[in-house]
């Protein structure tokens, strides 16, 4: 039996539950908490979800999720994700296509989200990032954070600002450099560097051919053999720890890692603007088919309204350094001096400015979780690890 086919059992179960939900009506469903499967950085306003619940007016049952793409696919398509979760988050530009094509997420009605009007223009029809939340032209997800990943460096120890990926591979940081232990971001960032510096001919750093992957990996193997990398970090805690303890001085990592490690170590760890380009990505929320059947759409839209409000946008920027997905953040910050003191305002403004600088670079490339030649990526990455 092909596991991709719905079995008769599951079909009857679905129809049965749909009938049951229709019979009880949406009122009953609205009082149930929304079963949310997402990463920890999706919440702001405190150490737990209570602030988010208060602001959105719904109750949330949170389930921890790792940032790995494959886990989502496995759970939703092969496992019982639809029964377990009403809403989930993952990377835009790849995951929503994969999940929508398998029929496990629902099409969205954005007229139910008042704050959709404020969303960044790039997500509207015809915008540059419009594809990242749509499948076959229909909106299937709502973005809540995005960024252009760059290099974090320890300014206190180095004493200068770094503006090129060259630094990551430079002799002066031999044994003090780190990259992410994941072939997606690491190979893409390296490819961006190699392409823009002219060292290798690469057409699309986000979706490389087998030969291009080989070239990039051989460069990395070479660097690794010379002892350039202290380690490949895996996980937020690791990333922060490496920078905060001065174990590494330059690290290709996410912005929240830079934010947290700077705070922890009381050193000036900065996030640079690389002249070759950055890996851009976003993360978005989807409503599962199971969640739709259980009548959780209303709760979902309420939560999405919160995620597209400047309340969330300002806070995710201040706490983690992620890019807000709506307009009007600066005005919101001005209008709420009690929540944001002068320092916070300066930080927010500074980060926004840096993001504009990064996004303006021509060489930026989108994070692709399902490259065409994914097996080549995996095989060559295994070789990099073994070297």
């Amino acid at each position, binding site marked *: 039996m092909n596991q991709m086919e719905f*079995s008769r*059992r599951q079909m009857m*179960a679905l129809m049965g539950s749909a009938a049951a939900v229709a019979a009880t009506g949406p009122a009953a469903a609205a009082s149930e908490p929304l079963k949310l499967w997402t990463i920890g*950085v999706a919440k702001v306003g405190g150490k737990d979800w209570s602030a988010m619940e208060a602001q959105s007016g719904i109750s949330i049952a949170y389930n*921890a999720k790792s940032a790995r793409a494959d886990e989502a696919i496995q759970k939703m398509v092969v*496992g019982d994700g639809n029964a377990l979760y009403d809403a989930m988050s993952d990377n835009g530009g790849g995951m929503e296509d994969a999940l929508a094509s398998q029929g496990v997420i629902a099409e969205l009605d954005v007229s139910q989200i008042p704050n959709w009007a404020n969303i960044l223009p790039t997500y509207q029809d015809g915008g540059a990032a419009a594809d990242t939340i749509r499948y076959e032209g229909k909106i299937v997800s709502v973005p809540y954070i995005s960024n252009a990943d760059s290099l974090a460096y320890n300014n206190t120890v180095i004493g200068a600002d770094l503006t090129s990926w060259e630094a990551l591979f430079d002799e002066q940081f031999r044994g003090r450099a780190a990259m992410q232990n994941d072939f997606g971001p690491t190979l893409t960032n390296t490819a961006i560097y190699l392409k823009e510096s002219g060292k290798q001919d690469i057409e699309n750093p986000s979706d490389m051919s087998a030969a291009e992957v080989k070239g990039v990996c051989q460069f990395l193997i070479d660097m690794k053999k010379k002892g350039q990398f202290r380690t490949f970090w895996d996980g*937020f805690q690791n990333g922060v720890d490496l920078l905060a303890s001065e174990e590494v001085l330059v690290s290709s990592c996410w912005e929240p890692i830079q934010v947290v490690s700077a705070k*922890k170590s009381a050193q000036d760890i900065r996030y640079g603007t690389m002249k070759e380009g950055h890996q851009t990505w976003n993360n978005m929320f989807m409503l599962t088919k199971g969640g739709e059947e259980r009548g959780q759409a209303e709760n979902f839209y309420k939560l999405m309204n919160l995620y597209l409000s400047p309340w969330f946008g300002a806070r995710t920027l201040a706490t983690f350094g992620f890019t807000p997905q709506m307009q009007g953040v600066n005005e919101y910050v001005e209008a709420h001096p009690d929540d944001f003191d002068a320092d916070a305002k300066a930080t927010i403004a500074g980060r926004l400015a840096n993001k504009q600088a990064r996004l303006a670079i021509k060489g930026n490339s989108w994070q692709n979780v399902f490259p065409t030649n994914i097996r080549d990526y995996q095989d060559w990455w295994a070789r990099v690890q073994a070297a």
Partner: protein
Amino acid sequence: MNDYANPWGYRLQWMYLLLVVTTLMSPVFYVMYVSFNENGFGAAEYVFTLEWYGVIFTDKLMMNALGWTLSLAVVTTVVTVPFAVLAAKFYKTARSKVWVVFLLLSPLFVAADIFGAALLVYFKNLNHTLVWVGDWMDTGVMDGWFKLGFTTAWIGLIIYTIPYAFIVVLITMGRYKVQQTEAARACGATAWRAFWDIEFPQIRPGVMSACAFTVILCFNEYTRTSLLKGGFDTFTTVLVSQMLNEGMSEQSYAMSSFVSFLAIAAIGSIILWTLVRSEKLGAEARAKAAPVAS
């Protein structure tokens, strides 16, 4: 000690033993140290606070995970320890001991990730098979039996802990004199009464140790549980998820230290209690043997 024993050798070896134990315990102590720091792990500044211990009980995620972990630990112990006792008794009378030992102890030798991977695929296939059989028999009652969830995590943990429980129980049984069971049977007792009234009280310390050991193992197990559980979170999976995605929250360290305090208290009190008891018994014995003072 005998004529050849060197008192200094004895002391040195004790010191070495304690040194090793301290080194092994140092991560535990370090985590406790961190749990009192306001700024968390790896921070440059250390500010003492009891704040995080208070947060433990209000952190819904943590409490939820702890609840799941505790229930898993309890149900696992309820199955594993009786299984271990049954298997130990069977082993004593079995003819081909090798196979029994092999079957019961082999989980020890299978690495965690491999174990989890194999069982994961097995349960998925078993589930598909049962659904297919259910379709054929027109019933849906078996559909959810082996879906990844509590049951599968439970089964995985039972298999993981049985070898340990088996060894502990078997060793305790080794000190039990089988002639007592024979005598009890000769006096007319049924097999069950011979076990429950005669044998069990004597192997009770071993059984209790096996229970404690099993609970501890379940609590700290990560790899197999994470692969086999379904949608819920356990204590260790929350820790790892936090470590990977947002950094371990400060209350996680407090929670781990709290669990460690409890466990150290438990083991420490067992050690102390047996120490005091043997001292007391020794004193009684000496008193009996001492000549009456006139």
